């Protein structure tokens, strides 16, 4: 922290327009998972304008910019995922009012991408020169069915020696994730066969079948230690009031501190699906498309300690929470990593998603503080 400019937060505030303009422009480019090209292109333009000579788009569609350091072979990776949960059909107009910016995806993760796009400019304005290479990664195909494909490709194929990594999320300021929990994510889809027997009046419905599955999942006994939970995150099914639902889909996630419990719970869900299929004769599909192993750095790890110190200097209250996002891919590669948030916000994943402008500067100061701390060798 010694090398940080004293009035960092205030100085960052004076560059507010550049960050907010990047946020608005990035936010207005729709970027559903698997279709992040335009956002990545914007990011690359920013990297090029900032004079990052080694910037490129890789085979997985990630946007990468490298700010060369003075005298180190090591690299610090800053990552923000480029995709959002909103489709191309959503109106992506961003609205700027006095204290907030509102629009779909603004918090998750247009703000993270905007920070990535603005970092080279900010570091130059603050006259911060790094020893390490700073690798800025706009990760494609991260969310949902993307299953961290972008960052995994980058980590598998790059030739850099990445010493530390920070993942940036728009919200919440104070977030400090240093471990990944075990996770298994999937969908269960029930379908009523086309050759439906109408004599079973009122009996067959994809929703009723799915309900049966849900009840059985709910009855699974989960251990208190290691901590485990099943999140039933979304349900979609049927078409109208008076038509029997032909299909219904449950989106779920099993989370646990233990890899074994995740696997055994996954197996139990598979058994439930087979049991209900045989009972009802309906078609039930189980599609597990994402898995994570638990892991991470310890609470006392120097990187973790360093983050808490930076936060304390900036009077940010740390909120410790495990993560299932890109951090998991970094942990798999044994790279000491953290996920940090930039500001406060609300209505996450709704069209009225919003972020507050004022806390952003502190969030940025925190990121720049961490970069300089890592660069200064304080997190070894």
């Amino acid at each position, binding site marked *: 922290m010694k090398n940080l400019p004293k009035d960092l937060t205030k100085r960052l505030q004076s560059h507010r*327009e*550049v960050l907010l303009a990047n946020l608005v422009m990035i936010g*207005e480019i729709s970027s559903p998972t698997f279709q992040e090209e335009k956002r990545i292109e914007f990011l690359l333009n920013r990297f090029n304008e900032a004079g990052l000579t080694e910037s490129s788009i890789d085979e997985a569609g990630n946007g990468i910019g490298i700010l060369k350091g003075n005298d180190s072979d090591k690299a610090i990776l800053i990552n923000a995922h480029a995709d959002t949960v909103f489709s191309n059909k959503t109106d992506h*107009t961003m609205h*700027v009012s006095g204290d907030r910016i509102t629009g779909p995806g603004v918090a998750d993760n247009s703000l993270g991408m905007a920070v990535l796009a603005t970092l080279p400019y900010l570091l130059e304005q603050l006259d911060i020169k790094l020893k390490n290479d700073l690798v800025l990664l706009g990760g494609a195909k991260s969310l949902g069915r993307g299953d961290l494909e972008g960052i995994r490709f980058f980590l598998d194929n790059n030739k850099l020696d990445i010493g530390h990594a920070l993942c940036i999320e728009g919200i919440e300021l104070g977030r400090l994730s240093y471990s990944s929990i075990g996770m298994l994510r999937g969908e269960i889809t029930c379908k009523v066969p086309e050759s439906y027997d109408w004599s079973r009046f009122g009996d067959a419905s994809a929703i009723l079948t799915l309900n049966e599955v849900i009840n059985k999942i709910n009855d699974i006994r989960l251990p208190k230690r290691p901590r485990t939970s099943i999140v039933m995150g979304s349900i979609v099914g049927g078409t109208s009031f008076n038509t029997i639902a032909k299909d219904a889909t449950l989106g779920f996630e099993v989370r646990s501190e233990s890899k074994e419990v995740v696997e055994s719970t996954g197996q139990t869900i598979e058994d439930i699906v087979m049991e209900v299929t045989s009972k009802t004769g309906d078609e039930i599909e189980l599609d597990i498309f994402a898995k994570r192993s638990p892991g991470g750095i310890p609470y006392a790890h120097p990187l973790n300690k360093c983050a808490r110190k930076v936060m304390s200097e900036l009077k940010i209250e740390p909120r410790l929470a495990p993560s299932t996002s890109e951090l998991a891919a970094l942990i798999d590669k044994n790279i000491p990593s953290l996920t940090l948030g930039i500001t406060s916000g609300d209505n996450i994943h709704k069209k009225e998603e919003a972020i507050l402008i004022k806390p952003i500067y502190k969030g940025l100061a925190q990121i720049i503080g961490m970069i300089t701390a890592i660069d200064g060798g304080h997190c070894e």
Partner: protein
Amino acid sequence: MEVTVNNLQEWIDKNTYHHSQFWDLKKLVEKKEKLGLTISLCLPTLNEEKTIGKEIILFKSELVNRYPLIDEIAVIDSGSTDETLNVAKNFGADTYLASDILPNLEPKRGKGENLWKAIYQLKGDIIVYVDADISNIHPRFVYGLVAPLIYREEVKYVKAFYDRPLAFSGNVRASGGGRVTEILVRPLFSLFFPELTTIIQPLSGEYAVRREVLEQIAFPIGYGVETSHLIDVHHKFGLEAFAQTDLDKRVHENKPTIDLGKMSFGILQTFIKRAKALGIFEKADHETILRQFQVTKDKYEQNLIEIVEEERPPMIEIEDYRKKFKK
């Protein structure tokens, strides 16, 4: 080149740009600095709190901080009752109430009043006007308009046009302005000022103009300001003074037809006043060609349609009729 009704297409080809031609902001700023020009951005407002913040952030970031193309950003307000002025001030624009500028003059309310008072209040050699209600705002709305003034000394007034449809079938598509343009202004210009039909969107609220021109023309304070500018600048400086830039899509709230009626009424008043002053109505034979636009690939072409309104006399004047009905 002397522009006459016979070589309008040549004028269009030479003076119609697409904003992407000016993407190199570094080069543009260098040229501007070499010429020693100053540029002011004027955003006329009336209750625009929803969109003004975004406009200022984008222009300030891209065209002040990153590429110093504009020297001042000013909001000139007609007396908003919402948070427009606070938001604008908060994001670093200079804010003025139109009524506070030249306070000894009798106050008038209207967008034209704000545009006119900007000439007095702002310092730039070039003033670029951008409406404050654009929700898809982008720096091109400014650099696309000032660039022809920076690169070409003879150009004095650059007008925006928009609304290239995102999808169309076939090779040729109709292109033009809004409803009032196509129904009122284009037919009027075709009749009385055919040279001005080269301006694809005569009513667009975005334009960049040299001070030497702005200080020489009158400003209707209401709906007629854009129409009057075209007629007056054309009269004083000729069509050679104009250029126009395609700024792609412009998203804003659509006005109901009843409001377009008011707008048309204002425009007609302005038009008639000028046409009378210039003695246009006295011309024995006016034009019978309607000049619309169509786009082939990226080329804008005038589509000339001869419409002659022939008439029959009252039936009573026809001999056969009188015979039949014994009149």
